[in-house]
């Protein structure tokens, strides 16, 4: 999985009919020092994430293993919202503190 920040919402009226009602978010990858990198992905939301939240995304066929994305043409899903991230003994992210 990779760490990402929700930077936007994707609205599409013309899409695969199976995707109707699915919440799609634009997420930008984060490095472990919480800096935004240059890569983006459109991900389905399975946990109710909102803008600016730090989330964890799974990709590939695993992304289709939530109730919301089962059998859908989806290859990226937000499956967790980060509360705290600790790397090498120091807290690099704490939800609500920045």
């Amino acid at each position, binding site marked *: 999985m990779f760490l990402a920040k929700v930077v936007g919402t994707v609205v599409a009226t013309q899409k695969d009919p199976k995707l109707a009602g699915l919440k799609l978010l634009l997420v930008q990858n984060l490095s472990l020092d919480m800096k935004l990198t240059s890569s983006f992905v459109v991900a389905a939301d399975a946990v109710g994430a909102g803008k600016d939240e730090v989330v964890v995304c799974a990709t*590939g066929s695993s*992304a289709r293993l939530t109730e919301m994305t089962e059998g859908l043409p989806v290859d990226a899903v937000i499956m*967790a919202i980060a509360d705290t991230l600790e790397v090498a003994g120091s807290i690099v992210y704490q939800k609500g503190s920045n």
Partner: protein
Amino acid sequence: MNLATVIGSLWATQKHHSFTGMKFCVLQPLDQNRQPFGKPLIAVDPDNNVGRGETVFYVEGGDAAEIWENHSMPSDATIVGIVDSLSTDKKGES
């Protein structure tokens, strides 16, 4: 499967219900000489028994989602073992 060192942890209270009771680890993949190789990633620790600094091996991709029968989870990287020792022809290490 790949080798990695556990370099951190991630806590998430809001997560897909299939991850209940599990924690997430930050992994740095390793090469055969146990040197850092490639970018760090986040993996599920399904048994909750992995600590920082340990060398583990993990599965990636669709296989990571179904490590147990009748329990699938939206994970593309899952820790499946903790390395006790590792030796190669080049040099033995423990």
